[in-house]
């Protein structure tokens, strides 16, 4: 177990320079952006002299750049990301209100894509070079090339506008004030199309990784030995090939989550989902730099945590990794 603890500690420590780098990028953008940093942080278009003075004092803007960076870093870690001028509220409060909806969308679709991508790869690898394998492989290219927002629009056209099966926008029906189980059902109903979109665009990643890893593992010597020894092929595949072939997909889960969050921001905008995507769009349109940088920071930290959790999960699944 000590190997395990050491592994986790090492991973946690390796996250620190990443967070530092993100803060550094944000800091530089604030200072390079047109306009006065104090004005950007204040979130006001025409802040009074007193406000500027107060902010300059609070964030140490009158001090040398290195000291400023230190103060900025300390504030960011405390969760003080400045004020948003379009909402005149602290950035962190705005993000806290909406991050739940975004994570619900992103995580649900990521898990669904992981499961379906892996299963499809396992299924298609049994018919290697057959028609089914080729169709799935071409489909994976097409889905990979599809802009998430466009797929979302197409699904709305088909399932909402024409078939009228699903709602086009929102997270729940605002006209019915539902509670308990029916509210849960209503959210699921609204969740269906956005999750379908995001799952579809993530499936190719897992499909391809698992497919090539199944191919690789099934050529390993111990598998050949088992086949030669006369074990049932189906049993070898389910018990030995698939189990080992899933590991690379687990490692890329954290990384793919970054891709998923990007897609989810765009899909949220299409479906008017009350998450961070909508917030981001408002910030882009009204040039609310502080809000944009805050969203970037929080998303980046979320991804770091996701990658860390993936590593832990991986270490539990594959004991070999702990002793490297």
């Amino acid at each position: 177990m000590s190997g395990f603890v050491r592994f986790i500690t090492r991973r946690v420590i390796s996250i620190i320079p990443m967070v530092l780098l993100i803060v550094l990028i944000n800091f530089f953008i604030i200072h390079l952006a047109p306009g006065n940093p104090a004005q950007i942080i204040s979130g006001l278009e025409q802040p009074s002299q007193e406000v500027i003075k107060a902010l300059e004092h609070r964030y140490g803007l009158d001090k040398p750049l290195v000291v400023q960076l230190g103060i900025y870093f300390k504030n960011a870690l405390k969760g003080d990301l400045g004020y948003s001028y379009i909402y005149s509220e602290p950035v962190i409060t705005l993000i806290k209100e909406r991050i739940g909806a975004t994570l619900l969308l992103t995580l649900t679709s990521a898990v669904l894509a992981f499961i379906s991508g892996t299963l499809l790869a396992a299924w298609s690898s049994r018919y290697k070079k057959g028609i089914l394998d080729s169709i799935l492989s071409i489909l994976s290219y097409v889905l990979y090339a599809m802009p998430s927002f466009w797929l979302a629009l197409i699904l709305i056209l088909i399932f909402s506008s024409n078939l009228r099966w699903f709602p086009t926008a929102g997270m729940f029906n605002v006209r019915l004030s539902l509670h308990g189980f029916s509210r849960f059902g209503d959210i699921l109903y609204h969740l269906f199309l956005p999750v379908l979109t995001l799952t579809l665009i993530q499936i190719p990643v897992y499909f391809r990784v698992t497919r090539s890893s199944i191919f690789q593992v099934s050529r390993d010597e111990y598998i050949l030995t088992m086949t030669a020894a006369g074990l049932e092929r189906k049993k070898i595949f389910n018990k030995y090939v698939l189990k080992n072939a899933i590991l690379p997909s687990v490692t890329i889960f954290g990384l793919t989550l970054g891709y998923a969050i990007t897609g989810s921001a765009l899909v949220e905008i299409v479906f008017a989902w009350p998450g961070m995507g909508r917030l981001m769009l408002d910030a882009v349109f009204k040039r609310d730099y502080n809000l944009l940088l805050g969203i970037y920071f929080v998303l980046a930290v979320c991804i770091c945590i996701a990658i860390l959790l993936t590593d832990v999960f991986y270490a539990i699944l594959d004991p070999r990794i702990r002793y490297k």
Partner: protein
Amino acid sequence: MQSEKVMIKRKSNNIIKFWHSYRQSLYGLIGFAILLIFIIVALFAPIISPYNPHAMKGEVLLSPSLSHLMGTDHLGRDVFSRIVYGTRVSLSVGFIAAGLSAIIGIFIGSFSGYYGGIVDEIVDKIVDTFLMIPAFFLILIIVAIFGNSIFYIMLVIGLTTWPQNARLMRAQALSLRERTFVMVARATGESNIRILFTHIIPNGIYPVLANTALQMGGAILTEAALSFLGLGDPNFVSWGKMIYQARPYMTFAWWAVVFPGIFIVLAVVSFSFIGDGLQYTFNPKLNVKQKKVSA
């Protein structure tokens, strides 16, 4: 003079050999054919498009017909003509942004891998970080704050996506610098810069080239997403912007949303096919080389 002639001959032989093995990949060939068509469309856009892409002369929201192959949009502009002109933006974003990313990645990766040491470790950490955090948000912030001309968009995509190439090139440089021919070059007194440019980069560039084809598709998708958020260059027609503008009228004019998207998918798929074709072509070659060295 003669050695130069031999070099040229050897080079053209290499290209023919390369083409022979690239031909083996069906996906690679299809991708190349689609790309060729797109390039022709981009070059001859004024001849191919039946209408002026900015002219608001036709009737608004006409469904696809013989006179307007893909219908007209909410301002009466011909969708097909706008798609033809949009090819120019998408292809140039793909080539320039991914090309820039390749050049930066090759330089940083080969220097870092070849020289090693503390600089290499720092570069590796930076590359790791950039690879984990989605570049799209950074690109979005920079374009939103500093401006959205098309050249700026290409520049920012190139400047934020090089870490992938740097990682591939670094791995190549790390293994190449231990090879006998590089050690011989060093022993005969060739300068490090010369070794980098004549041995390390030419021999290790292949994975970067395959990845660059994939990144061209990625750059096209990024530009489309930026345009969809209203951050495209206002002076050019782009596929993403067409979808953005047609979205409010989507329920009664599906064509203005559907067709530009199909072309985005086609362009990105063609680059993915080419990337995979290149990978299949380069990999067996590398395997043969490795076998020879070990034998």
